[in-house]
């Protein structure tokens, strides 16, 4: 809600397979039609939100980054570009500069620093953005990375900028698993982060990493315990000690597991979840408002 007029909730989890997408899609479905929901699947390396929200793709856009091309006539082989490239996508070999396009993040530093304007930037496709209306009128968009090298950050950035956000709408962003740059990119600008974790020691370890990121980015967050009943109480204890709210518990059940496997959400399992997610949403709204006034 900060600068834009939409409320942006990012759903993240330290590790994959915690039920993050199940939570994100169930939340989206429970908020419509009362809220105008835009769902952004930011897990561009393995998008799966569409399996649950079933959008009809109507718009498509290529995601590109600008990578350098060096004009050898103008190049002084001064090495400045190699020095400033933090991704090591350039090397100075003998009297020429070698470019490794798979490593280039398109940051533009090299062109900016080149003293003789020898660097032209050319488009390099990295993936595609797709959008369309999904179940219950949810506006849906995702990005699909098509190159083998992990270059998720730029495509997530482009995905977030692509769709118009309307006043009063709710944006739900499904983050990639893990605690990498692409998670940071998804969280950037979010008003609230909903973290999905399992009550196991592994779950705790990964959860801590994401919580550290949230702290650093100053984003309020809460946790949903999924598969409650397996594992131990370490996650509970840790969250209590650190005053991080547990906002919902989803029990371990084979019924839920088989529903998810069939492309269904929690709302299909029990209509109670609709209400639970609505309550969760009002808690989130409250937390965001408190966070903004202090």
């Amino acid at each position, binding site marked *: 809600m900060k600068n834009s007029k939409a409320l942006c909730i990012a759903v993240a989890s330290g590790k994959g397979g915690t039920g993050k997408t199940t939570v994100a899609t169930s939340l989206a479905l429970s908020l419509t039609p009362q809220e105008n929901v835009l769902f952004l699947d930011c897990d561009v390396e393995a998008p799966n939100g569409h399996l649950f929200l079933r959008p009809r793709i109507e718009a498509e856009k290529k995601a590109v980054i600008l990578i350098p091309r060096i004009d050898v006539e103008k190049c002084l082989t001064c090495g400045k570009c*190699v020095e400033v490239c933090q*991704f*090591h*996508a*350039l*090397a*100075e*070999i*003998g009297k020429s500069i*070698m470019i*490794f396009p*798979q*490593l280039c993040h398109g940051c533009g530093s090299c062109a900016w620093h080149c003293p003789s304007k020898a660097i032209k930037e050319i488009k390099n496709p990295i993936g595609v953005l797709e959008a369309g209306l999904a179940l219950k009128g949810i506006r849906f968009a995702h990005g699909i990375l098509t190159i083998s*090298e*992990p270059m998720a950050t730029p495509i997530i950035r482009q995905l977030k900028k692509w769709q118009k956000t309307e006043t009063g709408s709710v944006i739900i962003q499904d983050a990639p698993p893990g605690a990498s740059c692409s998670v940071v990119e998804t969280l950037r600008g979010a008003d609230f982060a909903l973290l999905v974790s399992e009550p196991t020691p592994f779950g705790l370890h990964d959860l801590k990493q994401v919580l550290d990121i949230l702290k650093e980015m100053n984003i309020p967050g809460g946790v949903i315990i999924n598969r409650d009943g397996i594992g131990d109480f370490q996650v509970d204890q840790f969250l209590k000690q650190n005053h991080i709210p547990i906002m919902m518990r989803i029990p371990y059940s084979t019924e839920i597991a088989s529903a998810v496997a069939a492309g269904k959400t929690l709302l299909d399992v029990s209509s109670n979840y609709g209400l639970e997610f609505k309550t969760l949403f009002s808690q989130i709204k409250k937390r965001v408002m408190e966070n903004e006034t202090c």
Partner: protein
Amino acid sequence: MILIISSQNADINSPVDPRFGRSQFFIKYDTNTNHWEAIKNSSVNQRGGAGIAAAQIAVNHKAEVVISGDFGPNAFNALKAAGITMMTFLQDTSTVQDTIDHYKQGKLNPFE
């Protein structure tokens, strides 16, 4: 001839490091003078492109032969373009000094 060997420590008696880009140190050895120096690999903790950065170190130190356990495709392309010969250790358990001896005895295999 200038050799660069990936090494776990900044010492010629250190065990070799099998990973070229992720090696902690490089030992630079001049076969004409028998002089050696250790070079710290400042890119060891970088996420991507460590192989290229390591290749750049070898190029900047005018290495003619680089000896390691394995070379990634980027490092390979960069070193190849620079005309630097790549070779592999006999064993990952050797020391840098052993590896230099093996090189002098012509026991090492080129990496292709």
